[in-house]
């Protein structure tokens, strides 16, 4: 059900909406942090947070409150909150809008989060390219410090708090939480073996919670209205997928962008009602639902959930476009919700060229620690390139499956799955197109198109 809301986005579009004055006027700015720090106990904060059913907005969908509850006080080591604003997943363009247009919600969220998990410092890891985002966050921190909200005694409470913006160096893998921690420590951004998990040994070897930036930005709104009430804003609150979140759409739609809605919006609403429909009024061809690592859906796919116990049963036989966008619902249809920013492909887009483009990305971004990922991503790219060039064979088409399957489950971090799953998705959903290239019925020069219509950049 399309239900637009403006909890996280109320300051968007307001003149100087990123400043403290607007945040205090429009969003009860910092009143929630004041109340939480002055009246609540640490453990009550975590228990309350659980009721919000905020599923991590960074891609994996882990419940935020449960993650906070993993933090145990350490006798000698401090605890840290680390915010993931690496926003590198292709197709994802939502966290950036919060940093640019409502940075104070991030700072206030960090204050409540730190208090709940027992940390005094939050590091916000922002990819270096987002210079405006970093500047807006630093300015918000300075404003909050000047008012005495951040600092030695926030709101007069004896609980020192500081927020620091840290920057990366241009590497997608640093979005992976343990790679991000290494990068924060001034090392190469290579993922770490788990366990230990960050809650045991994270930043600087200390107990750490890593949350996505949108996850933490939702915290002040949730605590302001009461976390259970916040959760119930969602159409799929009963699936423990609560609240409101940002939905993005890009690619072949008339009106790409980011909107805040109650959880439970459908792809059809996102693409047609918010995105304005497909460019050139072409038929919809395929959708990558939540970042390039989430397996592609065909526009004509139907839900298959005959089992009445399946959470998806209510949508059995319906189009996948009408399933509420949720963590478990999208897992149920064989893909992932991911970052909740969808990439739309119109009729006429070549799925082989699309997979080739993505495999270039994964080849470029593998950190190289694990052989299946380092070598596999290279092979996936080379063979896809051969097929696209009309030099591929049917055996090689099958080899692509083998390579991808060999990456799955055999790597240090989930980048491996993030490479293999989209490859397998394209191969499975668009087998006929791949075979057409192998048989010479389609050619890169005439059919390998990624753009449609006159709406695209035309130059050259």
């Amino acid at each position, binding site marked *: 059900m399309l239900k637009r809301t403006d909890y996280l986005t109320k300051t968007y579009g307001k003149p100087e909406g990123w400043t403290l004055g607007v945040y205090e006027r429009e969003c009860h700015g910092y009143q929630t942090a004041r109340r939480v720090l002055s009246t609540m106990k640490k453990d009550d904060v975590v228990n309350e947070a659980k009721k919000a059913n905020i599923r991590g907005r960074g891609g994996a969908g882990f419940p935020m409150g449960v993650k906070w509850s993993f933090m145990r006080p350490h006798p000698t080591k401090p605890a840290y909150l680390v915010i993931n604003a690496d926003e*590198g997943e292709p197709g994802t363009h939502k966290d950036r809008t919060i940093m640019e247009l409502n940075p104070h919600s991030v700072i206030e969220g960090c204050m409540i989060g730190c208090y709940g998990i027992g940390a005094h410092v939050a590091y916000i890891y922002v990819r270096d390219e987002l*210079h*405006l985002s970093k500047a807006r966050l630093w300015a918000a921190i300075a404003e909050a410090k000047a008012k005495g909200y951040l600092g030695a005694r926030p709101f007069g409470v004896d609980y020192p708090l500081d927020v620091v913006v840290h920057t990366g160096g241009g590497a997608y893998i640093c979005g992976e939480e343990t790679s991000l921690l290494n990068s924060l420590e001034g090392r190469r951004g290579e993922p770490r073996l788990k366990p230990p998990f960050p809650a045991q040994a994270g930043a600087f070897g200390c107990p750490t919670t890593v949350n996505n930036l949108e996850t933490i930005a939702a915290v002040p709104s949730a605590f302001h209205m009461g976390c259970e009430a916040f959760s119930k804003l969602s159409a799929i609150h009963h699936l423990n997928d609560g609240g409101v979140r940002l939905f993005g759409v890009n690619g072949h739609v008339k009106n790409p962008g*980011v909107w805040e809605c109650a959880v439970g919006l459908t792809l059809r609403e996102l693409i047609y009602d918010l995105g304005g429909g497909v460019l050139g009024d072409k038929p919809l061809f395929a959708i990558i639902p939540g970042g390039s690592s989430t397996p592609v859906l065909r526009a004509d796919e139907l839900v298959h959930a005959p089992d009445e116990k399946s959470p998806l049963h209510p949508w059995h036989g319906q189009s996948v476009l009408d399933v509420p966008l949720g963590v478990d619902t999208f897992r149920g249809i064989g893909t992932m919700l991911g970052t909740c*920013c969808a990439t739309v492909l119109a009729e006429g887009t070549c799925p082989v060229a699309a997979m080739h483009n993505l495999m270039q990305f994964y080849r470029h971004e593998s950190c190289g620690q694990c052989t299946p990922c380092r070598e596999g991503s290279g092979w996936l790219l080379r063979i896809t390139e051969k097929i696209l060039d009309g030099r591929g064979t049917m055996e090689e088409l099958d080899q692509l499956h083998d390579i991808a399957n060999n990456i799955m489950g055999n790597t240090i971090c989930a980048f491996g799955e993030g490479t293999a799953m989209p490859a397998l998705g394209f191969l499975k959903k668009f087998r006929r197109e791949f075979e057409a290239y192998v048989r010479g019925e389609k050619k890169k020069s005439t059919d390998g198109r990624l*753009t449609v219509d006159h709406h695209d950049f035309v130059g050259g």
Partner: protein
Amino acid sequence: MTFALTPERDQELEQILKRYPNRMAALIPVLHLAQDQNGWISEEVVEWASRRLDVPPAHVRGVVTFYTLFNQKPVGKHQVWVCRTLPCALRGAGQLLAHCEKKLGIHAGETTADGKITLRTAECLASCGTAPMMQVDKTYHENLTPEAVDALLDELRR
């Protein structure tokens, strides 16, 4: 020649050091600071960073080579990055790159003969909803048209 930061930047470095429990954590922000001044991370910069932050030069080199934003050789005065990843490609990033290459007379990865512009491709820059796009030095340029790109490149070459 040994490398040293300008006094203003050196003060900034001192501020950066205060943010972390150890000196190594400042390495990436400090390398950005040095590259802003020097244009690239030369061996002199590596040795300077190593001394300044008490980490072995080999560690600094390992970090510099890991992250794509650190230049390991001199580059043009301006950096132009065209995002090439799928969401941008669906909106014409391929044509945008071809247009830039033709206009500048260089391929991606090269620098114009006058040393003014280095052209490169980037992977997704979190701007997919405003594609096609490119980053010029520290600024994003989004929803690009051929006219807008021409105006931008002309300005940079002036």
